[in-house]
């Protein structure tokens, strides 16, 4: 039973939200990107979270209760497989034979809302981490008259 288990769990949350913010920023920055190294327009990316056991394998026997505490991990950044938006723009250098340009299927509003959610989750994890840290600091003061 360690103070730092709570802080490790919270820091995993912070790291996961940070990855998500990076992905969202990348999406927003490339909302009009028509050329990528792989060819074709930029494909929207999304993070996939997964809850993994917070304890190491050796410590699992130390758990006092049946349910394992879970930390969060980003297991995958997967690219959106939706079809790109076709925009009529014959003057564009990447227009196809019909004059349509394949633009990334990214909705700016959606990405902004996701960013707000990610920020809020990041702040919540920060509060949780500070709470655990504050409890540890208070415990050090026990007996100090």
């Amino acid at each position, binding site marked *: *039973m360690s103070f730092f288990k709570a802080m490790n769990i919270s820091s*995993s949350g912070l790291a996961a939200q940070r990855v998500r913010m990076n992905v969202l920023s990348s999406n927003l920055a490339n909302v009009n990107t028509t050329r990528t190294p792989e060819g074709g327009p930029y494909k929207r990316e999304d993070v996939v979270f997964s809850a993994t056991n917070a304890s190491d394998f050796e410590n699992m026997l130390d758990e006092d209760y049946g*349910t394992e*505490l879970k930390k969060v991990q980003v297991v995958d950044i997967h690219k959106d497989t939706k079809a790109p938006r076709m925009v009529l723009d014959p003057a564009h250098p990447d227009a196809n034979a019909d004059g349509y340009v394949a633009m990334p299927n990214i909705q700016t509003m959606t990405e902004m809302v996701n960013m707000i959610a990610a920020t809020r989750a990041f702040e919540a994890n920060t509060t949780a981490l500070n709470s655990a840290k504050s409890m540890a600091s208070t415990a050090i003061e026990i007996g100090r*008259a």
Partner: protein
Amino acid sequence: MSGGLIGGLFTRGDYVKMGALNQRLERQHVINSNVANAETPGYRALGYDFEEQLQALSGSEGDNIPMQASDPRHYINGMADADGTITPEVYLRPTESVGQDGNTVDVDQEMAAMAENQILYKATVELINKKIGTLKYAIANGGNG
């Protein structure tokens, strides 16, 4: 929790406070885990209860015997063992609303629970410090005159 001179210094109320500190720390772990996984698909929020068990251990008014009572009849109703250990309850929080992805964490509820937990942790530490301070004062000033 030995007997003898040191055992006579702390009352049952003091051991209840020490137990409460442990329990509140575990609760902090659970809350942090919920907050870190607030966006993980399929994650179900956990709750951690110990109040009832600890209250069963706290004894009646004017009860001043130490925690490890030789008579097991002092601990009835299945909430606590004869040697003073309690079994906390880890459970899935019941929730009316489940998110689209199967996540049941309510971040605001977790924040409120975290604030309460931290404040009561600090208050309990403060009360333990007061008791220790009283003992120190008695030891320092009781031999004069």
